[in-house]
């Protein structure tokens, strides 16, 4: 809450203890004119306030009012004077001030001050802890690099802010906002937290101490990768077994392997029975079918694969092989010589694209079939057994190394 004193100076105080309707008495010692900003600023022997007619009020002695209107105890003046506020938490219980940068590490270093957020916001009075912000957490995965980084940060602090070198938390994060929940909460932006500073024995820092979220994430990633590797090996063992099975089944389709593969990949290569084709219930569903267009006769494209029949289509089909979407239209055309003529309506998004090879061999493969049966195995059209064997081998090697 912002108030204005008798001389027209503005001050930022807590919202908690001052309610609407309260009359506030406010005083500073010494009384000083306001600077250009209009906010009270500078060193004061005493600031006092009281809500008239209540018990609420306080006296703050030996304080320094920063140009940001944040109030500090006098002994912190050196640490914050001439520095800008880089970040203030939403509860106004933490404030960070930029100390300097380490360009080689794309790192910015801050002092962070804390105060209680309960009730009245008193002046900041505790020693600051240290915060470094960097997008690159790789240093945290190696103890030597981590230590080197921490010391470099502390050196910067010692140089730039000689009054704040006590042992305190060093919190390295990816974004300054992470300090708002530096103990609990979302850890995604946190890299490490540890203690560093000068005590009676000299410089204190233990690289094995504290929390290392980056290392936790890395361990999790390694575990996940390993689990995924194992899972892939398991799936691809099944893929290889299935491949073996398919190959054995292929002997029945000698000379028609492509058709068999297409069928397994969900492409129709057979008409329904003549009776089934009379069922209007079958007209609504649209399925891919392999066809061989032989020409055009009246309104129909003639086909001789899967068997003799016709297509009706809005798009143009030239002679050739296609995999196209079809719906059964047989019941709706007159019989010819007393016989139903198998007729499908063909649908194509844009110009129908003919297959490059006979029986659309370029559109079907073991990969296409296995990809359909094992959708999570990352199998594509060009799959060969070696691809799956590699997954199995990789896992065998990896698990052998662990043992």
């Amino acid at each position, binding site marked *: 809450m912002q108030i204005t004193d008798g001389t027209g100076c503005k001050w930022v105080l807590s919202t908690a203890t001052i309610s609407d309707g309260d009359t506030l008495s406010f005083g500073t010692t010494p009384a000083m004119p306001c600077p250009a900003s209009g906010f009270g600023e500078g060193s004061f022997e005493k600031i006092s306030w009281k809500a008239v007619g209540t018990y609420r009020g306080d006296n703050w002695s030996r304080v320094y009012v920063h140009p940001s209107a944040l109030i500090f105890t006098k002994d912190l003046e050196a640490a914050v004077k001439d520095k800008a506020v880089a970040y203030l938490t939403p509860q106004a219980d933490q404030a960070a001030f930029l100390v300097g940068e380490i360009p080689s590490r794309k790192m910015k270093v801050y002092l962070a001050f804390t105060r209680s957020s309960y009730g009245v916001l008193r002046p900041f009075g505790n020693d600051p802890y240290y915060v470094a912000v960097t997008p690159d957490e790789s240093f945290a995965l190696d103890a030597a690099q981590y230590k080197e980084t921490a010391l470099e940060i502390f050196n910067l602090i010692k140089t730039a802010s000689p009054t704040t070198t006590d042992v305190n938390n060093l919190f390295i994060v990816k974004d300054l906002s992470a300090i708002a929940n530096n103990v609990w909460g979302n850890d995604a932006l946190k890299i490490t937290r540890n203690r560093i500073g000068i005590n009676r024995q000299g410089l204190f820092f233990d690289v094995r101490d504290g929390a290392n979220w980056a290392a936790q994430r890395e361990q999790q990633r390694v575990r996940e990768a390993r689990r995924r590797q194992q899972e892939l090996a398991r799936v691809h063992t099944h893929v290889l077994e299935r491949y073996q099975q398919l190959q054995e089944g292929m002997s029945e389709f000698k000379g028609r392997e492509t058709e068999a593969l297409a069928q397994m990949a969900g492409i129709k290569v057979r008409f329904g029975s003549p009776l089934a084709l*009379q*069922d209007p*219930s079958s007209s*609504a569903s*649209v399925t891919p079918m392999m066809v061989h267009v032989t020409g055009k006769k009246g309104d129909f494209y003639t086909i001789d694969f899967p068997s003799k029949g016709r297509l009706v289509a809005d798009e143009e089909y030239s002679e050739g092989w296609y995999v196209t979407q079809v719906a059964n*239209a047989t019941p709706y055309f007159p019989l010819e010589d007393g*016989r*139903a003529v198998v007729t499908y309506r063909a*649908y194509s998004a844009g110009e129908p694209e003919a297959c490059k090879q006979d029986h659309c061999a370029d559109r079907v493969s073991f990969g296409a079939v296995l990809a359909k049966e094992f959708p999570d195995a990352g199998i594509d059209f060009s799959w060969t057994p070696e691809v799956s064997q590699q997954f199995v081998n990789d896992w065998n090697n990896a698990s052998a190394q662990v043992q």
Partner: protein
Amino acid sequence: MIKQMNKKQLLIGGVAAAVLVLGGGFAMVSSAGKKAALSYYDEFKERYFLEDVLSEGEVSYSAFSGNLTVADPEIRMATAQTNGAMNFMRSLLGSFDPRAVGSSDTGLGSWVEYQLDAVSGRNVAGVYLKADALKVARDGDSKAGEIHIQLLGLQMGNPYISHKGAEVVLVSDVSDEIQPRAELTANGRATESDFSWGTNLAVRQPVTGAFLVNSTGTYGTQVDVDFILKRSSDGEGSMKFVVTHRNDGSKVGEIVRKADFASLPELDDVEGGLKNALSGFILAGFHPYAGRAALMEAVSSFARVAKVENYSVTYSGFKPLKEAYGSYQETAPKAKFEAFCKEVGLSQWSSDFGAKGKNHSDSECAISRKLVEEGSFEEAYKFKEGKSLFAALFVSKAYELESN
């Protein structure tokens, strides 16, 4: 658009369907004279509750042949009926007590399953039957006489029908609405429609050789059904049942069933069996268990009384089947005949007694194979003297089978 139906409909269909059903059937037509024939016809319609579902053309009587001829018989009956047809069904259901019928693990049980295969266990939409004419003739009396029923030009199209309320809907009635459209719908379907399509019982009966139409797509086929049952005063008799398939007027093939009876029930009694057998088929569309029970009851009551000397079945012709197999071979040269059967929907189910011959099967697939390879399928049964048909077929298998 749904064709508005002539409410006056259907005796004939009942007879026809019943004949189709049993093959070795029974019928009853009143003797002598136009007046008697017509009044029998009316009575028949009433008896089978067909007045509301059969539409007929001119009903005429020829004194010369003794034939009562009904022109353009047409039956439209949806299973979702709420009108008179529901009444019909209810009364039929009431006529049979399923518990009265023997267990289904007898030979009869499996034969009945076979006969009802086209009907039960599938989505049955109802009956749509359309033919050029129905002829019914009866000579003599109940002890010594002849029943002759012909259903001519039965159309084999419309294997699937639907309904809107109580009205039968044909594919051609609504084809604009249900056929795939030029553009797909938002959810990737080719068309959207609320109609539910199911089996048309009239054209799916095995006994008419419907499988020969359904496996070749020759839905322009018209079938003539010709049934003659003779009985002499000493109780001997004979039956001839000829099914002829025609396409555009020319004969495609023929199924001939013949039987000689050492003993036949009196013709009047046969009528009950006919009605019950028909009921069984129609019932099965609604209630498979009751339908099976009804058909078993009808068949067994006839078979327990009748004594058969011999029975034969011959399929001949049916060239379209050979053509269909030929074009199948073009795409799959090395495939076995069974694969062709699967492709065109021919059943592999063989009846229990037909399978008694060595390496012999009377499944649709086996019949088709003989037709393709030899041009005919023949079966001849010779029964032991003195046994009832029921005992011979379903109890001790007292018969010999010869086949080609």
